[in-house]
């Protein structure tokens, strides 16, 4: 039967599969048809995998067997999902939307892929467009053209995980994975009207994801609802011996439920929200707070004295880590190779031909802040300020359970609007980078509109506090 993924969530699709209303193959065919008709315009997918119907067939078999045995099957079994192009799926190309890896085939599965596909039977539909090596806030830095926003194709989908967000908004898939180093899941989620979660640092294994800023990177889900995001998060989280930064359930103290009230206390750093907010974003923020108050949440003003340094700290630490992580692309072990007269010239030519302008900019900036004579003034100092910011958040969380801000200062901007001014583009991350600097979890929830463009609100919780995010997030989305 013909089905429309637009009308389904992961939860309702699972019910449909359980009741036999449709099969995983039906879902996969619907995803493929939707991509076929819309991807040319949106450029959300860089490639659709050639084995989608085979995967769906496996899922249908697993569902039939479970049904026969009178057993449940995993909620994600047979659900079509999209994967950001910096996550390895064995045998498939994983390019990070870069020329330097245009023809690189992954030789193993990332841990998150094993969990989704092997353990849960999810159907991986294809790899989604992104800013090259996840460096950008609009997906315009892709070597393969920008992704367009399904709500207005003259506008960006956000970034860096723009393809994953757009794919869900356009009804091509029911969920997706992205990576978030400074807002790369939450900001596109806000721009495309979907839910995007950046989990606690270490909650999800990064084995098999291409590193950008290793002290900041985290993989997380995109979905239409908080409940769906939670389903994907539950499937991918957990300690992994192959990623030594992963944490387990006991690493952070469980939320104490500070207020002991039925509803949580939400803090708002008003001092940081006075300037630079688009009028509609401000309105959605005010409306959201009013609605939450009506539902019994207590709203409290909080102070984060050093938060204004966040973006500056981020744009020192992240390029420093980028310059180190990008050193592996040398044209020797894998990826593009451009021949020079000797080995050293091979490096210079390969990296010049393979990396796009933003990647080069960040590599040079990182090399600068790490170089002798500047290290103390930049890298060392930025690390010290990072600790101050983290302490500010920890202190704030002594009196509130969650912190609410907009996800981004404005709705989706026009393609080309900010490409000539790196600092203007970087300011997109102003509200999102703090969660990466502190390692705390944060989620963007669709909360309102600016004309025909979606606006998301961001909730941040203390380390390990994903459950509070889900609880309050559900109350925000119910109101929309």
């Amino acid at each position, binding site marked *: 039967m013909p089905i429309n993924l637009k009308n389904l969530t992961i939860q309702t699709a699972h019910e449909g599969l359980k009741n036999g209303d449709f099969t995983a193959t039906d879902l996969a065919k619907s995803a493929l048809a939707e991509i076929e008709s819309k991807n040319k315009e949106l450029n959300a997918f860089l490639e659709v995998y050639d084995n989608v119907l085979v995967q769906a067939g496996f899922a249908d078999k697993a569902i039939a067997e479970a049904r026969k045995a009178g057993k449940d099957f995993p909620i994600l079994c047979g659900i079509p999902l999209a994967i950001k192009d910096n996550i390895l799926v064995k045998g498939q190309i994983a390019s990070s939307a870069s020329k330097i890896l245009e023809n*690189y*085939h992954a*030789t*193993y599965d990332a841990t998150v892929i094993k969990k989704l596909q092997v353990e849960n039977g999810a159907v991986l539909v294809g790899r989604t467009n992104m800013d090259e090596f996840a460096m950008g806030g609009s997906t315009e830095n892709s070597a393969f053209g920008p992704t367009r926003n399904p709500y207005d194709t003259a506008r960006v989908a956000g970034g860096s995980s723009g393809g994953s967000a757009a794919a869900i908004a356009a009804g091509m898939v029911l969920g997706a994975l992205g990576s978030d180093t400074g807002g790369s899941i939450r900001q596109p989620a806000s721009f495309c009207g979907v839910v995007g979660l950046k989990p606690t640092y270490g909650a999800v294994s990064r084995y098999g994801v291409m590193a950008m800023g290793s002290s900041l990177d985290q993989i997380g889900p995109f979905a239409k609802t908080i409940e769906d995001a939670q389903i994907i998060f539950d499937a991918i989280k957990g300690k992994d*011996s*192959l990623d*030594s*930064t992963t944490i387990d359930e006991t690493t952070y103290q469980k939320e104490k439920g500070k207020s002991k009230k039925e509803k949580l206390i939400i803090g708002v750093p008003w001092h940081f929200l006075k300037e630079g907010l688009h009028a509609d974003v401000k309105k959605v923020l005010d409306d959201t707070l009013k609605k939450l108050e009506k539902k019994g949440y207590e709203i409290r003003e909080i102070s984060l004295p*050093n938060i*204004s*340094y966040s*973006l*500056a*700290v981020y*744009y*020192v630490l992240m390029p420093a880590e980028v*310059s180190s992580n990008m050193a592996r692309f*040398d*044209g*020797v*072990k*894998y*990826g*593009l*190779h451009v021949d020079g007269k*000797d*080995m*050293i010239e*091979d*490096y*210079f*030519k390969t*990296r*010049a031909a393979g*990396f796009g*302008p933003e990647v*080069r*900019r960040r*590599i*040079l*900036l990182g*090399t*600068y802040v790490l*170089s002798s004579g500047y290290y*103390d*003034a*930049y890298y*060392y*100092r*930025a690390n*010290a*300020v990072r600790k*101050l910011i983290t302490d500010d958040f920890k202190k704030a969380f002594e009196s509130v359970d969650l912190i609410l801000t907009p996800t981004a200062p404005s709705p989706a901007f026009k393609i080309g609007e900010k490409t000539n*001014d*790196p*600092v203007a583009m*970087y300011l997109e991350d102003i509200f999102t980078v703090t969660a990466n600097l502190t390692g705390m979890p944060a989620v963007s929830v669709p909360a309102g509109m600016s004309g025909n463009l979606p606006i998301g609100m961001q909730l941040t919780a203390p380390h390990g506090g994903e459950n509070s995010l889900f609880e309050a997030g559900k109350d925000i989305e119910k109101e929309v």
Partner: protein
Amino acid sequence: MISEKEIENLANLARINLSADEKKKLAHDIDGILAYVDQIKSAPIPDLKPEPGAVKNVMRDDTAQTTSAEDREALLNEAPKREGDYVAVKKIIAQD
């Protein structure tokens, strides 16, 4: 102000060829970014002494793992050049 000469030095350290135009543009861009990030210099850092962080080292079990012939083949096939079971690279030591 960062000079084009400094950009050239950074590009050299980072092993990236840059054209004259790119050097000029990058000098301009990086100047703009540094002007923005310079605000961290005014942050109230009480004491700039190094101290151990909260993170601790995590070791993996030191056990031998055997790569299957199939995986080895896949890895070698990703190398731009291979010779038999080796990744082929250019001679590194020059003869003067």
